[in-house]
């Protein structure tokens, strides 16, 4: 792959490229950010995961200079951006959650214009625009007006615009929300390629599986507060010793769950969904005694599964929020989904 960002610039070893301490922001009586602190290391893919209204976009807006913090400090590449966000804007590329390029310009002209905003000379910006259009598979579309692009193409060109000046840090706000499955997959691959080329990426998403697959480290943000922050393996660690069994039983209810919990002590039993029981224990859960127990009560097990632990389990455990509801809420607001 062609190096799409300038990863050869010197970076101070181990010094965080983004350092945020006590960041707070309120809109009237609504607290958007409640004193959050975190660090992002150079070359890291850092995920900011949370439901709608958790404060993800507010945090990005403050970090990039589109909003002001009420309190706290921000240092980007060692520069104090708390009072002067312009100090680091040449280092960062931003891909907002909604494409904000110019509908009346062609894809190529949009990229050249964005390059000019960073002071790139004409020959350089033309070369760079062609390079990015080719990289994103938009060479033909580059001659057409941006307003006529599909959602996936718009998102790709918006990412290309964020990369036009070879930023060291790329902020991606919900990059795969509202686009088709194929485009979302392509964009995830692009993110992985960018990460591989050494670009620091700050990714916000509400797709937990996406964050799990892509990110080195993840912070869960809920109601303006970071409730958990760690590397993906570390986040999953507390669940590694847990054994889970999902049983699909017609008419499973709370009463049945309670009876099973009594009959098989040492674990938890709950109704996870309609006709679905979830058993969790510290030791392996044998299936046969459970099937026999249920058969003795006239219940048939139609399916049994031992799911592996995912970040979704961690998220639900930490926040108490239902992931499916969050996805539906977001997709309704963007008019699309994956």
């Amino acid at each position, binding site marked *: 792959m062609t190096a799409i960002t300038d990863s050869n610039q010197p970076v101070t070893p181990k010094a965080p490229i983004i350092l945020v301490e006590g960041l707070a922001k309120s809109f009237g009586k609504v607290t958007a950010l409640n004193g959050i602190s975190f660090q992002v290391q150079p070359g890291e893919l850092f995920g900011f995961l949370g439901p709608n209204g958790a404060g993800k976009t507010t945090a990005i807006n403050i970090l990039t*200079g589109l909003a002001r913090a009420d309190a706290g400090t921000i240092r980007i590449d060692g520069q104090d951006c708390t009072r002067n966000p312009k100090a680091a804007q040449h280092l960062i590329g931003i891909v907002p959650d909604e494409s904000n*390029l110019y509908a009346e*310009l062609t894809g190529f002209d949009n990229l050249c*214009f964005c390059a000019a905003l960073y*002071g790139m000379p004409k020959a350089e910006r033309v070369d760079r625009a062609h390079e990015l259009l080719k990289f994103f598979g938009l060479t033909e579309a580059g001659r057409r007006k941006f307003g006529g692009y599909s959602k996936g193409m718009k998102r790709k060109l918006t990412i290309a615009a964020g990369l036009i000046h070879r930023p060291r840090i790329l902020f991606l706000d919900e990059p795969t929300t509202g686009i088709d499955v194929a485009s979302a997959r392509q964009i995830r691959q692009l993110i992985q390629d960018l990460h591989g080329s050494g670009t620091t990426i700050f990714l916000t998403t509400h797709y937990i599986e996406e964050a799990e697959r892509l990110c080195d480290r993840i912070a869960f943000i809920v109601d303006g507060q970071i409730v958990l922050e760690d590397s993906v393996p570390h986040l999953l660690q507390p669940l590694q010793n847990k054994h889970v069994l999902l049983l699909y039983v017609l008419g499973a209810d709370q009463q049945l769950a309670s009876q099973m919990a009594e009959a098989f002590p040492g674990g938890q039993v709950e109704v996870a969904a309609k006709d679905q029981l979830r058993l969790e224990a510290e030791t392996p859960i044998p299936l046969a005694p459970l099937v026999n127990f249920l058969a003795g009560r006239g219940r048939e097990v139609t399916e049994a599964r031992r799911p592996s632990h995912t970040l979704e389990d961690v998220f639900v455990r930490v926040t108490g929020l239902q992931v499916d509801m969050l996805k539906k809420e977001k997709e309704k607001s963007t008019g699309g989904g994956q």
Partner: protein
Amino acid sequence: MKHWIAFWNILLKDLRAYYLKPPNISWGLIFPLAWTGMFFIRSGSGLESTLSILPGVMAVSILFGTTSMLSVTVTFEKRNRSFDRLLLSPIPLWLLMLAKTSGAILFGILNAFVPVVMAALLTDLSAVNWSLVVPAVILISLASTFLGLFIAVSVSEVFEAQTFSNFFRFPMIFLCGLFMPVASLPVYLQPLSYLLPLTYGVDILHGAIRGQNHLAYPLSFGLIFLFCISLFLLSLRNIYRKWIL
């Protein structure tokens, strides 16, 4: 140097995307033509009235041309979030806004000279003091553009910008001495006239075109320049306070 590359390209983009579009070009021609025709017919006199109408038509062409465009190039872009892309670039805010308003300033200047070309076909302009007309037109265009910017950053919707503009524009036609002298206004309205930047620009034009200015040129130039600086700084302050929340 990098900042000026950005400045130039913002201006070029706006010219291509907005100002050089056929509807705007035709609007820039038809609007002054309509005003000239209307006042010429209303005056009921012959071609000798052309010079008395010309300063007012020039000023009103600039005022409407610049303030109308700002609601599109600024309010519309803010509304559809493409303005955020400009705010996220490493350009100082003052230079960014100067770039965003330069197209309107040029548009206003060109609009002003449409009635001049038409007047040249109807009457003799040899007595006009162009060394006063040109800087006056530039300053009127600057003041009107920055007034438009002030309005554009005070609202969030394009239609609000248009209606709020009219709140300033229509009273200014009557209060700023465009077609009737400020002295002929009721005494209680005259102080209001001197609070409006267009009064000073139009007074210079009346002096330069037909030798009938009421204020000293340095005073008029100084005051309209002061209005330009104040409106621009006030707009920057509003952007910083309202748009960078």
